[in-house]
């Protein structure tokens, strides 16, 4: 019991972001790290602090002096010892509830000798692998259904690439949410409640505590009666609508009384004529083929999307199930709670209708209709408006000339906003080719920086030419600028601590998203440009 209490205190700030259920998901996560450079150890540090279940570090190197200049999770005492072992010990110190282990072997050799090793993890974090190594681990992880994050810190360039075939997000937790109040089309119970409130007959205190939602329902109804069933459309009509509301305010000697509920009603009048709509993201999910073909294997997300679609077409009459919560509004306690109850009851009824559809769909697919808990359906309905889906291409698809999205790459290279970061993306890949050719990264030796720049540039041009992107001779139209080529050579694949810290922290955020199923992960390659302090996400 004491341990439980301590945990809720220790993880309190995180739980406020992702909830107790998010914390539970983290505490179940088994994470594998490839390479214990600063990019890797910083990522794990952030996750160990957050309270994952366990981690395993795979690294075949020994601790060198250069490691001590950029990695906080190694010690000077550990010089020449196994980097995997020293990092594991330092990481375990951060949180005694997290178990840690290590394998002293190079990731490349482990991937080749024992690909099954990776199947036991929830998430693999592969750092500082060349493109060839990244393609290999991506294939292994996809085969075993293990989530993957690919990370690079390369001089002043950072790279974060989640690789999950499909991330289905119920709790996307958008920054701004819309209030679904149904003011212009109340369902019978809400309509009856609004009608039961007698504006003219209410004494002053009550009159100034009628929730604005009720005022707007009444005003919308009256307006429709007076305007052939239409809502206010033009600017002038909307002003007139607000004047109608104001005309209901109480006056003393011709001066309107200050009634906050009316002020709120006027400020929220747009909710009458601009109710929330179905977003393009949600529309795409509803139309996805996964929802059209529910099978034995379909995840419950898709079963629920299929049910949601039926609800919208049938009971919902084009509307989503009601979320059920209402914003605070100036009102008496009793009136507000009553209104809250009415909205909640409707939300419950909608969720029950969705649940019935879901059970039918399960049955039709030959599955147990009782296998879906009611709580999951309710949770789904509450967040239905904000469902999101992220599908990452495999790394092989992204990098092979036959399947890469050359048009997107070309567009990114020629758009002013993304040109520099797209060029860095190309240069990172070109640097790997350089390494494959010359067994060193460009700029490794002070005396060869300039020569290497020319060689790196030709690697970049060759890569672009393979993708059918020509005119890459450094011209403004879609080329890779000499300035950036020079900067990539200058840093000689150095793993700067600050860049690794940024990459590792962005990666930890992405890991938390992948593990909790909350928020929306990056859907492609994120490039962090530490020179310009910018990021871009590319789905090539």
């Amino acid at each position, binding site marked *: 019991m004491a341990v439980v209490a301590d945990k809720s205190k220790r993880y309190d700030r995180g739980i406020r972001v992702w909830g107790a259920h998010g914390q539970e998901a983290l505490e179940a996560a088994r994470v594998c790290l490839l390479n214990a450079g600063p990019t890797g150890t910083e990522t794990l540090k952030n996750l160990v602090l957050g309270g994952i279940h366990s981690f395993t570090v795979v690294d075949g190197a020994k601790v060198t002096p250069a490691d001590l200049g950029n990695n906080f999770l190694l010690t000077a005492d550990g010089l020449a010892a196994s980097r995997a072992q020293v990092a594991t010990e330092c990481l375990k110190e951060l949180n005694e509830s997290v178990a840690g282990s290590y394998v002293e072997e190079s990731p490349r050799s482990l991937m080749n000798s024992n690909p099954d090793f990776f199947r036991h993890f929830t998430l693999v974090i592969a750092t500082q692998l060349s493109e060839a190594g990244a393609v290999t681990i991506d294939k292994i992880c996809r085969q075993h259904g293990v989530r993957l994050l690919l990370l690079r810190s390369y001089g002043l360039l950072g790279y974060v690439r989640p690789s999950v075939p499909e991330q289905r997000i119920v709790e996307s937790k958008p920054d701004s949410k819309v209030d679904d109040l149904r003011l212009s089309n109340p369902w019978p119970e809400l309509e009856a409640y609004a009608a039961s409130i007698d504006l003219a007959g209410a004494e002053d205190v009550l009159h100034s505590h009628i929730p604005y939602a009720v005022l707007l329902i009444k005003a919308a109804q009256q307006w429709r009666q007076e305007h052939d069933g239409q809502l206010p459309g033009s600017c002038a009509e909307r002003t007139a609508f607000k004047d109608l509301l104001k005309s209901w305010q109480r006056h003393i000697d011709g001066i309107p009384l200050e009634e906050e509920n009316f002020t709120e009603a006027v400020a929220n009048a747009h909710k009458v004529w601009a109710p929330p709509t179905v977003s393009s993201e949600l529309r795409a999910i509803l139309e996805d083929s996964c929802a059209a073909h529910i099978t034995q294997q379909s995840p419950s997300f898709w079963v629920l999307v299929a049910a949601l679609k039926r609800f919208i077409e049938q009971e919902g009459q084009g509307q989503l199930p009601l979320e059920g919560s209402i914003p605070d509004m100036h009102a008496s306690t009793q009136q*507000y709670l009553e209104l809250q109850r009415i909205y909640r009851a409707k939300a419950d009824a909608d969720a029950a209708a969705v649940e019935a559809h879901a059970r039918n769909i399960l049955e039709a697919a030959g599955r147990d209709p009782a296998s879906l808990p009611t709580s999951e359906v309710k949770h789904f309905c509450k967040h239905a408006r904000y469902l999101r889906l992220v599908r990452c291409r495999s790394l092989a698809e992204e990098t092979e000339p036959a399947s890469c999205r050359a048009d997107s790459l070309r567009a990114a290279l020629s758009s002013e906003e993304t040109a520099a970061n797209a060029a860095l993306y190309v240069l990172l890949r070109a640097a790997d080719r350089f390494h494959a050719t010359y067994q060193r990264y460009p700029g490794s030796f002070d005396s060869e920086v300039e020569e290497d720049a020319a060689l790196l540039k030709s690697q970049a041009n060759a890569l672009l030419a393979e993708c059918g992107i020509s005119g890459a001779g450094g011209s403004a139209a879609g080329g890779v600028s000499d300035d950036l080529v020079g900067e990539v050579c200058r840093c000689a694949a150095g793993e700067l601590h600050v860049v690794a810290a940024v990459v590792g922290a962005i990666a930890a955020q992405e890991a938390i998203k992948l593990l909790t199923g909350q928020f929306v992960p990056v859907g492609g390659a994120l490039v962090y440009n530490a020179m310009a302090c*910018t990021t871009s996400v590319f789905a090539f």
Partner: protein
Amino acid sequence: MGLEGRWRDIDYLLTRQGNVVGPGFEPGPEIREFLQNDCRVLVVGAGGLGCELLKDLALSGFGNIDVIDMDTIDVSNLNRQFLFRMHDVGRSKAEIAAQRIMQRIPGVSVTAHHCMIQDKPLDFYQQFHVIVLGLDSLEARRYMNSVACSFLEYDEDGQPDLSTIKPMVDGGTEGFKGHARVLIPGVTPCFECTLWLFPPQTKFPLCTLAETPRSPAHCIEYAKIILWPKERSDDSFDADCEEHMKWVYEKALARAAEFGIQGMTYQLTQGVVKNIIPAIASTNAIVAAQCTLEALKMVTMCSTGLNNYMMYVGTDGVYTLTTPYERDEKCPICSAGVSYEVSPSTTLQQLIDGLVADPDLGKHLSAPSVSYGSTNLYMRGALEGQTRHNLEKPISELVDGEGSVIHVNDRKLVSAMKVRLKFNGTNGHMET
């Protein structure tokens, strides 16, 4: 010492010429020697950002770091403040953080200051080349801003004197979002120039709390603001005392039950009472590393600097925005002098009243003193008697004329507000 080659990666950046660098960058081993031996950096705050900043600075080659924080370590810090352990709870954040950095990174010196930022004299802040802020309150940021701006001097052409600029880097986080910004007084906006970037706190009207509570938060605020002073007037409320927090929770719970309000929890009570901003390790790490990188660029010019604000939003994919915010030329804290129009016949008393009533300047003032050059025109406190007679004099008799800059001081300010007087010529135009 066997650590030859330890700074290999950072040396690429510091010893090689680049194409994308700051003005006047001269690569060479001297830069790292300067960082190691001579450069002084202050980290304000040893919390979520502070722990990260100390580590990042030390591993970026900074050899002399000071850290100031008045707080002690709490269990709820351990989810992100990675330099602290369970057995450190209750001890000084600054001291433990300094100790842990020095233990781990040979050759780095970190000096801890376990005190309030206001306890230090201005001279203390003067000695640093750059100040990095890892704070969570606007109030503390404004204080540090007035400290940094107090060193700033302008030449006769109204250009900032570069030798008086005390640069700062600031970071902040909330959940998956954060910001990093660079403050170069006189060049980029200071906090006062861009106060609107900080959202106001939500406050509930008292009558809602007392008469028509509708949410758990209303009940919690009622218990804390109304019931506590009424029922426990002898105790001053301490949000860090568990018994106090439990009391508020019990009272709020009872009130919620009385009104039929659902969803009351102890966690929510703490959140509302302490105004807890959720903080996680990863976001702090992103922001602190970005801030450190900017401090490094500022001191070494090894790469182009941030101009001047970077926003990071990690909730929906990753979205960042870099914005060159503009200075407020009329900022009373960092400008060469805010222009203020008066009639030459305005008395000093009228001028002071006018400043306090001014919608822009008045928010920094409560009971100002005024000086002109080395002359005290009107001083509160010990010199009040000696300077009181000036209050009745017209301002034109007290200063040299059009364009004179008077210094207005106030206990709300750390440094004087500079006001450049503009005479509007029409005698007697001022309303009295």
